[in-house]
């Protein structure tokens, strides 16, 4: 039962999450808690109880916006934002599939953009995201407006030393 907790703590490499005494300051201050099926402090309890499948299969871990309000206010310095990162990493590494698929697709499109040019070209990144999610038409007008205003361009300066950028991706690959 303790294996899940131990793994999460090892990955966080900081304050053990069982230091949480459930004052719920994190959940009270969390801007996204209204959309989560488990409040942040409940995720901690579930990890302690070994509910691995429920936690890694939840929307909650993907909805966390990393605003860091929780860790800033936690009286016990539990790094809940980092905990959410760790849980997402576990889902990706174990190939479990994200409960919030579009959110992971966004991150993948973003990182693919860096890998290909060193810098994000926002319209190309969004196009890549839309192609993989099939969500082609939302925000179309907004995007076209920005093009018309000359805000977005399909071509933008790239990093010259792309070898070093690619190496970073290759060497940090799991």
């Amino acid at each position, binding site marked *: 039962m303790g294996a899940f907790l131990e793994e999460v703590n090892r990955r966080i490499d900081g304050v053990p999450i069982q230091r949480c005494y459930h004052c719920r300051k994190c959940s009270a201050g969390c801007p*996204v808690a209204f*959309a989560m099926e488990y409040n942040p402090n409940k995720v901690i309890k579930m990890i302690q109880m070994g509910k691995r499948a429920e936690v890694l299969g939840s929307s909650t871990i993907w909805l966390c*916006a990393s605003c860091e309000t929780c860790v800033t206010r936690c009286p016990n310095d539990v790094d809940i934002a980092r905990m959410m990162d760790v849980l997402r990493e576990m889902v*990706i590494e174990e190939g479990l599939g994200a409960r919030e698929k579009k*959110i992971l697709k966004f991150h*993948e499109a973003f*990182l693919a953009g860096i890998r290909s040019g*060193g810098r994000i070209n*926002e*319209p190309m990144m969004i196009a890549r995201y839309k192609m993989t999610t099939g969500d082609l038409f939302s925000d179309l007008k907004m995007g076209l407006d920005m093009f018309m205003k000359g805000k977005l361009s399909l071509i933008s300066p790239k990093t010259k030393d792309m070898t070093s950028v690619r190496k970073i991706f290759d060497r940090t690959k799991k």
Partner: protein
Amino acid sequence: MKVSYYPGCSLHATGKEYDQSVKAVSRALGIELAEVNDWSCCGASSAHMTNYRLSVALPARNLASAEKAGLDVMVPCAACFNRFKMAQHHLRENGALKKEIEEIIGESCRGDLAVRNPIDVFSKDIGLEKLAEKVTRKLAGLKPVSYYGCLLLRPPEVCEFDNYENPVLLDKIMEAMGAEPRNWSCKTDCCGGSLTLGKTDIVIRLVDKLMTMAREAGANCLVTACPVCMANLDMRPREEIRLPVFYFTELMALAMGLPGPTEWFKLHNTDPAPLLKSLALL
């Protein structure tokens, strides 16, 4: 004063007017900006949400480049600023990680460079009095609420430049420009950030609340220092409650009589021209 300058990806696209206004204001204040050599993306939220080592290595590549110049590095984008500070924090705290990251990026990264946000540089290095002296047209009648969002101030022991629950520097800069900043309790609330594409409904709910609270505080506009907050506040709220949103540097340029604001304002989704014309500021 000379600093290194890291614009980041957004400032070349959706945050173009932030880049241009930071440059205009810096020039007018005698701050010389030297772009970080061959910079690459900081990885933003997507790196740290999916791959820890990547999220340290991407900023470290840029920090290593900036360290060669040896100057403080000015980072206007709140997300880039946060990732730079966070990477430095991890590199300082964890010797083994530092060694690993240096191997990944193929060069040394000390992690001790002063990473500065322009709010910090303008208000502390230049000083509020000097800023006020530069004003040629006071922003009378403009009542902004300062909106910092998350990434400039949290976590406080990493970001360390303004109060993390009730920051005041943006208000003070706006006061120095002759504006009448309104107090409110949402300065450091979250706009939903990168959820804007994957979970648009959440972002709409968050920015609707921010617009409603800004109106209740008696504000007629919002001022920010983050391209993600700007995009969400400028484009996502319900039409009927929208207020104009500005980068703080756009308003500084306007007050200091610098060229550019008229063109920058045309890039906004929520047109600020009617408000500024009604106050005879445009």
